[in-house]
């Protein structure tokens, strides 16, 4: 029977299938960070259990880490305790750990692919919803709660039922100035924040195939913003070329054997998808969110919607609430909206390609005097590469703050956060109320669009700056 990429990975990892369809699903890679693991280790300790496979597990601190003063003690006591707790736990249980001062430290979803830890055909989990990112490698990767983190630590498996298959087909070619971020924002806008609930999304089509790995990782990263626990892209030559030679990837003969297997993974012709959605890449223009969930997104050329036009009363009230929170008026142009902060970073957009895209816009320009602009590379290695290439210098000369790696202002668990009422153009993934700091207002967009907003001081169309 014709199977999808998801079906194939699932089938290859079923240890046992129970009568009601619940499966014991084997997990190949377990990524840990400091926020969602302490209670899991505590659970192991209380039950006298061990980590079943330390050689399939790796930990890094990313959410709490300050992006300045690397190597100094973390000033904030609770953050310091959480990182110290991770360090004590990995030492006690023998789990491999990338220390904060290691150049390879970074956001867990950046370093998985970067280190060759995330490979096609694998099952990958982490106590973090953006684990969907790794699906770009052709892996089944999804976020889990802390109880499931404990379950994987103890058993190297999860109890799960298979998800439904959904294909999002993006045909055609992206126009200049448009990026992977604009593709995924357009998809979330189309299917909604619950559009992928219960499904795994496979992204396909000419525009997806044309993306480099950085772009594919950006697309899969935000699958959860469409409600899908996992997003997938079939591995191809782009994938294999990216993986080859990475530290934790198979090397030499083993790599060739791996590729031979990976080539069997793409969905078979005629495989069944429960739902198919099609977009034309040529119609996508740079996207910006205007509201307080990721489906509240529109082209930068758009006008803020009018709640009065919404027939459903509950939705109308929520639209009005969004506009109040965002301090926007119905019918106003989104372009021209003044911003206070620009954040370029996060597991969505902090790879070297993202920083290059920002630098290409910022080059020879200056961050507007009223704007504070931060660049937070996704890993120490991305930072070093950007410095070696001159990307860092371009951004610094333009007036961007150049920071150390971490999750930073995506969710404000470290000192980088918005203050009450500040408006931010952000390359991150969530624009929920207070996400970047209490009372902060978030507009999600691509790195190029964020850089354009930084130099103009307002939300604007990057195509006006680079054409």
């Amino acid at each position, binding site marked *: 029977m014709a199977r999808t990429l998801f079906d194939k990975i699932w089938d290859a990892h079923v240890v046992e299938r129970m009568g009601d369809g619940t499966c014991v699903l084997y997990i190949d890679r377990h990524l840990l960070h400091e926020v969602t693991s302490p209670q899991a280790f505590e659970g192991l300790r209380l039950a006298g259990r061990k980590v079943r496979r330390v050689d399939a597990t790796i930990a890094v601190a990313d959410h709490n880490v300050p992006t300045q003063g690397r190597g100094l003690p973390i000033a904030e006591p609770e953050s310091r305790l959480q990182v110290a707790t991770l360090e004590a736990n990995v030492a006690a249980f023998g789990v491999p750990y990338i220390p904060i001062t290691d150049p390879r430290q970074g956001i867990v979803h950046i370093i998985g692919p970067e280190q060759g830890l995330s490979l096609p055909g694998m099952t990958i989990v982490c106590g973090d919803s953006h684990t969907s990112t790794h699906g770009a490698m052709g892996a089944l990767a999804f976020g889990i709660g802390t109880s499931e983190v404990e379950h994987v630590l103890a*058993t190297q498996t999860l109890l799960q039922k298979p998800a439904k298959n959904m294909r999002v087909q993006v045909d055609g070619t992206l126009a200049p100035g448009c990026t992977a971020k604009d593709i995924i924002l357009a998809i979330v806008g189309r299917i909604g924040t619950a559009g992928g609930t219960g499904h795994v999304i496979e992204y396909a089509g000419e525009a997806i195939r044309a993306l480099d790995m950085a772009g594919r990782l950006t697309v899969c990263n935000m699958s959860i913003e469409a409600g899908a626990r996992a997003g997938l892209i079939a591995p191809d030559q782009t994938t294999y070329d990216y993986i080859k030679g990475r530290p934790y990837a198979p090397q030499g003969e083993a790599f060739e054997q791996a590729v031979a297997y990976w080539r069997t993974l793409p969905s078979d012709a005629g495989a069944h998808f429960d739902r198919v959605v099609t977009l034309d890449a040529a119609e996508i223009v740079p996207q910006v969110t205007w509201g307080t969930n990721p489906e509240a997104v529109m082209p930068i050329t758009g006008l803020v919607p009018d709640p009065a036009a919404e027939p459903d009363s509950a939705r109308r009230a929520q639209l009005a609430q969004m506009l109040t929170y965002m301090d926007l008026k119905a019918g106003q142009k989104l372009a021209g909206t003044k911003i206070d902060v620009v954040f370029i970073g996060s597991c969505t957009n902090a790879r070297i390609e993202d920083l290059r895209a920002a630098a290409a816009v910022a080059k020879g320009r200056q961050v507007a005097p009223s704007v504070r602009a931060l660049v937070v590379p996704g890993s120490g290695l991305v930072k070093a590469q950007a410095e070696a290439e001159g990307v860092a210098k371009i951004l610094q000369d333009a007036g961007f703050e150049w920071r150390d790696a971490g999750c930073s202002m995506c969710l404000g668990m470290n000192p980088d956060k918005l203050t009450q009422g500040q408006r931010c153009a952000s390359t991150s993934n969530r624009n929920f109320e207070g996400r970047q700091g209490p009372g902060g207002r978030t507009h999600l967009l691509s790195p190029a669009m964020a850089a354009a907003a930084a130099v103009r001081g307002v939300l604007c169309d990057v195509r006006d700056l680079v054409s």
Partner: protein
Amino acid sequence: MTPFTTLTAMAAPLNLNNVDTDKIIPARFLKTIRRSGLGVHLFDSLRYLADGSENPDFVLNQAKYRKAEILITGENFGCGSSREHAPWALLDFGIGCVIAPSFADIFHENCFKNGILPITLPAEVCAELMADAALGQNARISIDLAAQMVTRPDGRRIPFEVDAFRKKCLLNGLDEIGLTLEHAGAIEIFEQRRAAAESWQPTIDGV
């Protein structure tokens, strides 16, 4: 895990769609290494004003809902972050059951791991329950997990669906890890078979 069998309690109406887990508990309260004590931060941005005082308009701050144990809410409840701190905060506040037209996947899963029963019912039924909840103190709603039945204050009964395996775990307060470890032999055989067939699969031998 504490079993969930039956619950007869006051229900609070939270008439919002797409309540994300940042709204259930903001990231700044995730810096704990414990599961307990999060109830005070539940729905922080809705529950407290900028000066830290209680927002009198928020449902859980109203005298009749302070002891609510059931939450009736809108579609896609619990979307966003995978933080299990969201069900921990609900539980710590005293909420043992959430009824909504739909839930986000990870939150839904996390509820079952913590003895919280998430019940999915059609939007129009949730609207009726929301109206029941609006009656306050005297409107107690009953949940019977074994019978898969919600009983409204006027005695009308509404059946609901629940996954059989999760139901069993909730009813008996089962330790899922313990259950899975009963398959330890099969896990070992799986590992040996794959190690032989896919010798190229890399391991993480230190950093």
